[in-house]
């Protein structure tokens, strides 16, 4: 019998089709993983199941009962527990209370206390019961997030990337926990996960989502062998692409070095993120920094900009030391950032978004006008939407605006943080063209990516970062040619 089933579940956000007619089912005791590239609609799918917003169309059945349109609290009451991609706990309460208070919803005081300790034992947090949840390590917080999901007398667990941001040893521990929850406690589990080794090892079945559509479904073996899945998910590193790459003339860029990081160390609070990172960028280059989720890519960019000041090491830009400067001072020297979340000003129009960078830079109006006109030439879509507010733009348009905005002013180096995140392949291709175009106009680019396809296609040089360490530096062709190396470093 199916414990949970969806029929043609659909969710549109304006023109963005996040989830598209997805038929999904899971039977009791099954462990089913949902995989798919960023922006495939995985988390939106969970949000629909848990009633965080109503579907545009389609049905959700739990134990053959139609639960479409239930509130999150009602869904939880039915016995569907959910963990979150971005850790969601009660930071200023004790670890025990994090579990105990939710459990009180379903159990008497005495039982809730007992049940809470059982749950904490299961996730290996019983020793920390009296600690403040906010003081736990990242991995323990992820486990606490799962523990909270277990309190709702849950039969069905929806786990949203439980290992995100964890190093691989710790991920293995989490994978064991998930298997234990299934085997020893009989939970039915839907797992969203990016780490393919884990997915392939522990799932009974796998569903692949791509751009809101269900692309494939099957056992781990079937999915591994499915070519379509490989193309969509594993970044399209198929033979044709490799040949194309090999044939690409490598540009020999001997421009002068404009950015240099030397022995840079960064911390978030107690946790040491970057370990002696060294990299350099020469004038006119496209350099990419590749790495998995949580490897330290965004932190590297934040450190360059002074948003996360390095604890040691030096950063120089055009020969001038910029480490220790405030972010705005760094930006005023000609570095700009396109953040992964785009951070388009939602209540300003496209035009206003583009004008904004000029206010502090003392650039004459004529130059400002011509730069903005230039931007519209590169991004004709933006010109059409000139007087629309930022929050009315689609994901792709926002990405364009974020990139156009980063070019405003006298910018010589653009830091791009995962420009492909959450974009359809066709748009990713557009973005790649735009990056190339910008580069041809003389802007140097440091690109941070998870999407190996995009990153390697564009790069003059590649760095690979893993757990805060630079583990590879060289030509993209060399990296690709070495099957074993690229497998190990990038998981492709």
């Amino acid at each position, binding site marked *: 019998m199916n414990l949970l089933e969806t029929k043609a579940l659909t969710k549109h956000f304006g023109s963005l089709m996040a989830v598209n007619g997805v038929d999904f089912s899971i039977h009791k005791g099954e462990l089913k993983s949902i995989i798919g590239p960023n922006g495939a609609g995985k988390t939106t799918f969970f949000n629909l199941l*848990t009633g*965080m917003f109503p579907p545009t169309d389609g049905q959700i059945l739990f134990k053959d009962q139609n639960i479409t349109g239930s*509130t*999150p*609290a009602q869904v*939880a*009451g039915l016995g569907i*527990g*959910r963990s*979150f991609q971005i850790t*969601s*706990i*009660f*930071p*200023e*309460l*004790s670890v*025990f*209370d994090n579990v*105990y*208070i*939710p459990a*009180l*919803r*379903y159990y008497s005081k005495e039982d809730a*206390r*007992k049940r*809470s*300790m*059982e749950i*904490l*034992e299961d996730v290996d947090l*019983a*020793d920390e*019961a*009296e600690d403040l949840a906010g003081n736990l390590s990242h991995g323990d917080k992820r486990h606490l997030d799962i523990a*909270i*999901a277990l*309190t*709702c007398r849950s039969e069905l667990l929806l786990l949203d990337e439980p290992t995100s941001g964890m190093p691989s040893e710790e991920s293995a521990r989490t994978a064991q926990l998930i298997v234990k929850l299934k085997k020893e406690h009989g939970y039915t589990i839907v797992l969203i996960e990016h780490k393919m080794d884990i997915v392939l090892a522990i799932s009974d079945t796998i569903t692949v989502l791509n751009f809101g559509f269900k692309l494939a479904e099957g056992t781990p073996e079937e999915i591994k062998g499915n070519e379509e899945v490989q193309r969509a998910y594993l970044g399209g590193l198929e033979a044709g692409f490799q040949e194309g790459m090999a044939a690409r003339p490598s540009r020999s860029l001997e421009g002068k070095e404009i950015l240099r990081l030397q022995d840079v160390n960064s911390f978030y609070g107690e946790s040491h993120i970057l370990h002696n990172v060294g990299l350099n960028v020469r004038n006119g280059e496209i350099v990419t920094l590749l790495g998995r989720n949580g490897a330290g890519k965004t932190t590297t960019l934040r450190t360059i900009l002074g948003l996360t000041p390095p604890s040691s090491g030096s950063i120089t830009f055009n020969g001038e030391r910029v480490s220790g400067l405030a972010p705005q001072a760094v930006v005023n020297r000609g570095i700009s950032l396109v953040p992964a979340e785009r951070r388009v000003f939602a209540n300003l129009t496209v035009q206003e978004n583009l004008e904004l960078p000029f206010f502090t830079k003392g650039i004459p109006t004529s130059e400002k006008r011509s730069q903005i006109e230039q931007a519209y030439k590169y991004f004709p879509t933006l010109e059409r939407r000139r007087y629309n507010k930022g929050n009315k733009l689609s994901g792709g348009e926002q990405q364009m605006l974020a990139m156009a905005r980063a070019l405003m002013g006298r910018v010589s180096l653009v830091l791009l943080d995962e420009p492909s995140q959450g974009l359809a392949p066709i748009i990713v291709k557009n973005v790649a063209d735009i990056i190339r175009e910008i580069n041809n106009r003389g802007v140097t680019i440091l690109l941070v990516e998870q999407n190996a396809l995009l990153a390697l296609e564009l790069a003059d040089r590649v760095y690979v970062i893993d757990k805060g360490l630079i583990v590879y530096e060289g030509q993209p062709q060399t990296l690709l040619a070495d099957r074993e190396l690229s497998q190990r470093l990038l998981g492709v």
Partner: protein
Amino acid sequence: MRQAPAPPSVAMDCLRMGILFLVVALLPFMIPYVGGYVGLSVEMVIFAIFALGFDLLLGYTGILSFGQAAYFGLAGYTMGLVCIHFNVPPIVGMCAGVLVGSLAAVVIGLLIIRKTGIYFAMLTIAFGQMFFFIASRWTDVTGGEDGLTGIPRNLISIGPFSWNVTNDLSFYYFVFIFFVLATLVKYWLVQSHFGLVLKTIRENETRAQMVGYNVRRYKLYSFIIAGIFAAVAGVLYAMFLRYMFPQTLDWIRSGNVVIMGLVGGLGTLFGPIVGAGVVTYLMNFTSYYTKYWQFVMGVIFVVFILFFPRGIWGFVERRRSGTS
């Protein structure tokens, strides 16, 4: 199997509350030594009741309201009007005042509880100011800017018992009864399942919802309870002054209670009480010495926000747990 952590010790808290009540009971006799008078201690305790309820809202539930004075003032005005026009004993007026103030909190709460953050705070101000303008413009009924005079404070009689609260010291002990009740009710609420859920809402509203709590209902109850505490404080204030004026409904008064919470320490049992006492005392003290007393209050407030973000009581508790 490891044992669950011991629940917080009720005996210890009872002891601490006992000491608190003793100190507050002796307050009118101590206050002359620091330049105060009995009436000031009455005000301190009335505002402590107000702040206790407000702490449930901001300190425990994490909801910021700038309109709590609306329920405070509305209750006071109602009490006055009922007593003056219907010539009923004060106790009946008090009940009417608390009832009307609480009902206003229910109605307004129902209307605005789905809004969050700054929008919610702005709406609370809007409703608060609405009552303020009614009180200052509807002169025929409220006395307008001149205020409502002639609110009785004489004999409180319930059945065979009667108590003359005309003088400030006896009125102080009348208020003290409500203060003790308010403290106990707040303590009980905070320890209860309800109070624990409020804390999870403060910490992470989405997650609280996702484990099955009807967050909106809890927030509404928290808002209503804060309104009831404000209304109780309001009727006591009207009796104390024998007079109500529009500024009792003003958002500045609502702001004062926010300051009391922040200075004393939000989300603690004793913090709002300490805050209400300290702020009321300082306002009185500084306004006696300088007409720029609001400036002095502002500086004190800024110093607290910057250096003692957990307030006086939060600071004390932290020091104690740090050294033990």
